[in-house]
């Protein structure tokens, strides 16, 4: 058990490419933090720096109260679960889990006890312990990889996209298992994923990375409700947030799309930005179907997708051609070219500065 601290941590490769532009974060004891971002954003690099598989160019990484910059991975008291599991193919499951303990010189009885305990937690049978990794299914291999991490009883767990090799159904199941396990063992964890659903459901906090820069750090709900930048807004949430160029009106009370559609803004908040060009962001689920009397805008439907639990409607507001997606609950019978009267609560509006891509107010 330990907290992890990253202090101005940077990584520059010998060829001059800067992979990580300075990360500051304090991960408290028992917390699960998710590093999320598109591929190539540096999230895996950052994880591997914590693991000691990549060197740190500047700044420090501390685990507990020790600065671990120059420690070998084995001495950092961490355990890592790899994307492709990295199980030793020629060893059976028991030996895979016991290998690290053997090297550390633990007594046979202690190794046996620890592996048995981990196998119990992960519901691996005695029969499975004697098999080779290739005789196991993907989900079972995943469990063994986690077992290998658990037996070390580390202060920090590192997960490198552990679920991306599993099929969709198993992924949901293992996601729950990882969450349960992490809460049960209470071990500080860093989890890397590119899947925003995984990130939202697993993490106590999320760190969104983009091109080596931390875009935002916060709880899943904070990120969802108050994305700090266009990037975070577009990355978190599925279907993604709708964006359209717009302009705040003269008294700051509303925002207008090019085609004339107007949305009410919360009073007072945006007064100082009057007449400014902005990018308007609306989550698909925030536009609510209403009757024509209270509607402020009508969406012209162009395409309808039925998901069963939800109906996704693609369309545009008036003469503005920006494609908008809205999500309506349940099954809605809508044809293309229908006009849908919609309502949007002013506090659900997200406005971004088109230049800096940052959130306004």
């Amino acid at each position, binding site marked *: 058990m330990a907290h992890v601290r990253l202090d101005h941590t940077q990584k520059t490769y010998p060829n001059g490419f800067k992979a990580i532009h300075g990360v500051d974060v304090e991960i408290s004891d028992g917390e699960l933090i998710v590093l999320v971002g598109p591929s190539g954003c540096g999230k895996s690099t950052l994880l591997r720096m914590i*693991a*000691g*598989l990549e060197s740190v160019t500047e700044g420090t990484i501390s685990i507990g109260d020790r600065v671990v910059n120059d420690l*070998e*991975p*084995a001495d950092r008291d*961490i*355990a*890592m679960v*790899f*994307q*492709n599991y*990295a*199980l*030793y*193919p*020629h*060893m059976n499951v028991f030996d895979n889990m016991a*290998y*690290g303990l053997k*090297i*550390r010189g633990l007594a046979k009885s202690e190794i046996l006890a620890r592996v048995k305990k981990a196998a119990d937690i992960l519901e691996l049978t005695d029969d499975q312990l004697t098999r080779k990794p*290739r005789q196991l299914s993907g989900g079972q291999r995943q469990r063994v990889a986690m077992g*290998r991490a658990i037996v070390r009883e580390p202060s920090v767990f590192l997960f490198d996209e552990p679920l991306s090799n599993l099929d969709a159904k198993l992924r949901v199941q293992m996601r729950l298992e990882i969450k349960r396990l992490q809460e049960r063992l209470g071990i500080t964890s860093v989890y890397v994923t590119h899947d925003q659903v995984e990130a939202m459901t697993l993490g106590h906090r999320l760190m969104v990375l983009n091109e080596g820069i931390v875009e935002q750090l916060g709880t899943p709900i904070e990120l969802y409700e108050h994305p700090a930048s266009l990037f975070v807004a577009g990355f978190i949430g599925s279907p993604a947030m709708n964006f359209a160029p717009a302009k705040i009106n003269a008294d700051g009370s509303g925002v207008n799309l090019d085609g004339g559609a107007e949305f009410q803004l919360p009073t007072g908040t945006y007064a100082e930005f009057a007449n400014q060009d902005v990018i308007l962001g609306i989550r698909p689920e925030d536009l609510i179907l209403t009757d024509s009397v209270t509607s402020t805008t009508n969406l012209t439907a162009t395409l309808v997708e039925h998901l069963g639990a939800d109906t996704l409607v693609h369309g545009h507001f008036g003469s503005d051609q920006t494609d908008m997606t809205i999500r309506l609950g349940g099954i809605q019978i809508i044809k293309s070219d229908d006009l849908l009267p919609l309502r949007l609560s002013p506090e659900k509006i997200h406005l971004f500065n088109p230049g800096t891509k940052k959130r306004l107010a």
Partner: protein
Amino acid sequence: MIENRPFITAISHIVLVIGVMIIAFPIWVTFVAATHDAVRMVQVPLPLWPGSHFFENLDQTLNKGIEGGVNQGVAMMMLNSLIMAMMIAVGKIAISLISAFAIVYFRFPFRMGFFWMIFITLMLPVEVRIIPTFEVVANLNLLNSYLGLSVPLIASATATFMFRQTFLTIPDELLEAARIDGAGPMRFFKDILLPMSRTNIAALFVILFIYGWNQYLWPLLVTTDRDMYTIVMAIKQMLEAAEQAPEWNVIMMTTLLAMLPPVAVVIFMQKLFVKGLTETEK
């Protein structure tokens, strides 16, 4: 292609049988010649069916050698050949494993330079560098010794290259997992790399054993002492026995004996051999 046409089946069997006969006939002749006495073997026509002198010939070949010749049984030569072939095979594999390990897993200056230096020795087999190599071996007083027979043949670019390719297919994550588990480089080599290259080692052993066993030119040069002769070079010398008709029965028996160990190695290591050359699952 799955077809069921009796005519095609018959034709392909005939072609295969002819092929087998072409390969097998010389071996049959060798076997037949080894079962007749010396007198019968100089008469025409040559026999095509086995005679009754197999065990006499075997005894003479193993223990006495050719009459009027060097009076040296081939049992000793077979032992020499075996020791040489084993030293070459084991030595090549050991050195290649270690050098491939260094080239793939360590970052040292001129790493690729060293790799290419090893690689271009492919162009310099023993036959090309035979005179300087002989001089080196002679100056080291290694003539007429097992070391002299095997060491110059041990350095091997092919095996190094093959192990390099094998190691490159082993995912980096395994190395990283081993590092996190606390395994140092030699531990990783012993616990992970060696077991994972097991089938490749076996395949290479088969090839290299046969390569070593079949060496002819080099043993001919470095051995002058009869106790160090190898069986393959002995066959040639038997043909030149002093002013006599060659004793074909003994020569053919020697040939048969010389064929046995490579055949045995191939038969017993067949499974591993095929696996080592074809297996891709890592």
